[in-house]
């Protein structure tokens, strides 16, 4: 791939399958995975390129309906659909994870349809009690065992520590990139940012970190960044695999300057703590530090304190990125995010930050009614 920096991210975003096929042709082993929970450090330590399997809002679901009913998460249906159409043929081996209920079932059905030579399902607990960390670690040990058996290679603990450092270094670069949107106007648009994140999920870690360094330098020097607008918005919710919703928002008088979505900060934000047994640090990072509503957080002495435990980190984002509004978005049939809506909305109300909830169908079409609502919201907060 000859392009660099933002152009490269854009190219990969536009044709991620193409880039992954190139990698495969170059001899890279491709490990597909779902959600943000598989420990990618272990995957790269075994010389795989981890590529996140995602759906497409742009591709009508035509085959997956023969396998799953239409009331199931449309993104997972889309992922299965693409797989059945041969559009994810670059995936060689696959890691599933119990992130939400539908994802758990999807993984088994995906494997049933795709018949990958190696399939490992990671059983991630929904609770983060003391014993849950041991359970999580045992799950990683089992993953290691099955992966070693499949590849015929041993996972070297020192190599794993190196990989942890490498992934943490990339996370630091991502945080630096996000920092470029703190100022007003931001140096990078929300759409560009999502393109970069989706590109990172589609290329090897070294290539991604190199691309990030180029992008950071380019963006710091650019003169053609986003214009100052009335609204600085934080975007929360279920994964976005296309920029269409952010494009729609940013076509109005608003910049999306921060997010809490799992193809954004959720995936990249927390580092892995360096521990003598790296699996301990990995277990903590993936079970507790990674903030997704799929994990139950312990209740405290009041609902308000619960809200702090569950959403306090988003308040920090809102403050540091100086947002004046929040878009809560979720695709239809996402129960994990659906249950959160009244509580998180009440939380932002209490903080005095207006919010708007949008439910969408995970398609490019039917965004027009949402646009009208977003427009009204921006006018209101301006």
């Amino acid at each position, binding site marked *: 791939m000859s392009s660099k920096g933002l152009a490269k991210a854009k190219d990969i975003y536009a044709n991620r399958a193409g880039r992954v096929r190139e990698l495969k042709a170059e001899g890279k082993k491709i490990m597909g995975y779902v959600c943000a929970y598989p420990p990618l450090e272990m995957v790269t330590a075994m010389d795989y390129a981890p590529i996140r399997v995602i759906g497409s809002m742009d591709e009508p679901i035509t085959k997956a309906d023969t396998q799953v*009913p239409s*009331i199931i998460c449309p993104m997972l249906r889309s992922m299965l659909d693409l797989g059945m159409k041969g559009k994810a043929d670059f995936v060689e081996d696959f890691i599933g994870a119990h992130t939400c209920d539908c994802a758990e079932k999807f993984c088994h059905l995906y494997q049933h349809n795709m018949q990958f030579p190696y399939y490992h399902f990671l059983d991630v607990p929904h609770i983060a009690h003391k014993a849950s960390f041991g359970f999580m670690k045992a799950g990683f040990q089992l993953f290691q065992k099955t992966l070693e058996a499949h590849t015929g290679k041993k996972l070297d603990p020192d190599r794993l520590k190196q990989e942890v450092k490498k992934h943490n270094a990339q996370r630091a670069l991502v945080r630096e990139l996000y920092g470029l949107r703190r100022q007003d106007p931001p140096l990078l648009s929300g759409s560009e940012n999502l393109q970069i994140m989706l590109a990172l999920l589609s290329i090897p870690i070294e290539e991604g970190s190199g691309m990030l360094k180029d992008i950071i330098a380019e963006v710091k020097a650019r003169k053609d960044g986003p214009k100052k607008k009335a609204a600085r918005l934080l975007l929360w919710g279920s994964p976005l695999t296309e920029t269409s919703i952010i494009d729609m928002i940013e076509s109005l008088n608003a910049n999306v300057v921060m997010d809490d979505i799992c193809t954004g900060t959720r995936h990249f934000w927390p580092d892995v703590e360096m521990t003598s047994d790296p699996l301990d640090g990995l277990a903590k990072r993936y079970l507790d530090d990674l903030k997704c509503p799929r994990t139950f957080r312990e209740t405290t002495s009041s609902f308000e304190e*619960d809200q702090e435990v569950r959403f306090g980190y988003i308040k920090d984002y809102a403050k540091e990125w100086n947002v004046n509004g929040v878009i809560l978005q979720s695709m*239809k049939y996402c129960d994990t995010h*659906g*249950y959160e809506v*009244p509580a998180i909305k009440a939380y932002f109300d209490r903080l005095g930050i207006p919010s708007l909830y949008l439910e969408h169908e995970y398609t490019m079409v039917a965004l027009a009614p949402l646009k009208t609502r977003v427009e009204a919201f921006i006018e209101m907060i301006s």
Partner: protein
Amino acid sequence: MAEEKKKRAITRLESSALVRPLVNKMYMEGALAGMEERPVAWSMVNWWEGDIIMRAMGVTPVYPENFGTVCAALGIAQKYMGVSAAEGFPTHLCGYAQNTIGYTTEMKREGKVPEGAPMGGMAQPTFMLCSEGYCDARFKWFQSLRQFWNVPVWTLPFPHPVYTDPSLQDVHKVNVEYMAVELQGFIAFLENLLKKKLDRDKLEAMLNNQEKVFKVWWEINELRKAKPCPMHARDFWTMMVPCFYTAYDPETLAVYQQVYNEVKARVDNGIGAIPDEKYRLVFAELPPWHSLGFFDKLAERGWNFAAESASYHPPPPMELNGGGDLPYRIARWTYWSYINTGYRAAKMGYPAVGAAQPYYNWAVEYKIDGILTHPLVTCRTATFWHTHSMNVLRDKLDIPGMSIQGDIVDLTVFDAATALNQAPAFEESMDHFRKVRKSKGLDW
């Protein structure tokens, strides 16, 4: 009234009438505990993981999921769902959850059990007990209720291992040990909350009773393999309630023993649950609680439902004598209840994954002619595997399937008329595939 009874094509078990008092008692205990300000837990179905411990500690559990079925059956749920939507909860969320959120909103508004709530309503909880088991609603829903109830919420673990690999014994060991450790944590939580110690002798006695209930209930369902099937799904859905919620109670055991005797007598005398069993079906997964009379219409056509609701069936008996480690013993059972169908299917080489496995097992063992699925607008967990299950039964066993869109709680999306219009064509399909199976050497 007599004329109404005459119209019903399903011959319900006489002993199923004995279940109603058990259910009434369960609700009355909950209401009474609330009035007397004794500890009450709002509890998810947890596959016997936490209920019996609560009971042994003197806590009276009430079950919002079951309350949802009652509200649906009585047509009250629609109102509560509307209240939930007005509170900002999406309408695709679990119907039981929407029902409870609406009920709770009303309860807080009125400062008491809402006017018109069935079965005496649900008393205010002292704490809420979630389960990781099966679906995310089981913990997200009670987390949401924290905005109404300032009480602690505890979540029980429930591993979800890969269904198909029976060789992963070390995984099973890790999973059960994790659950047992977490149950010790739950006991500590209760002891701290209630300021009293668990009476382990009491717990053991309750467990002994519970395990006898499981065994009888399993045997009852085994009897349903007989032709004609002696017990319809309607009776299953009525009778699964005590097994889930009051299996610790000797009265439950006595009732199940009577049910067993009646079903056995029917088998011995060749009596079916419907007069003329033309087709034997399985039902996936949860029924339209608001429209159960629909099954009488199907029974009139000779449709008998011999198995149903895979997640709610008792697993086969296992040796539970785990010594004095009661949490470990409880954990083993709950874990077994989750993995048993996948475990058996994998051992037998059945080509299915997920919840298609129990339906495959049943199709073979109960000599099934068709599968009727009921995709639920508000429940992804119970619906996810429907299409796959139908595919597997059709492709591997030449058993056709039919779907009726609907919901457990929302009666507005259930279209019985369309389903009944499809019935004759589906019967032709079942007839056809019966011949195909025979031609392939299958014995039904």
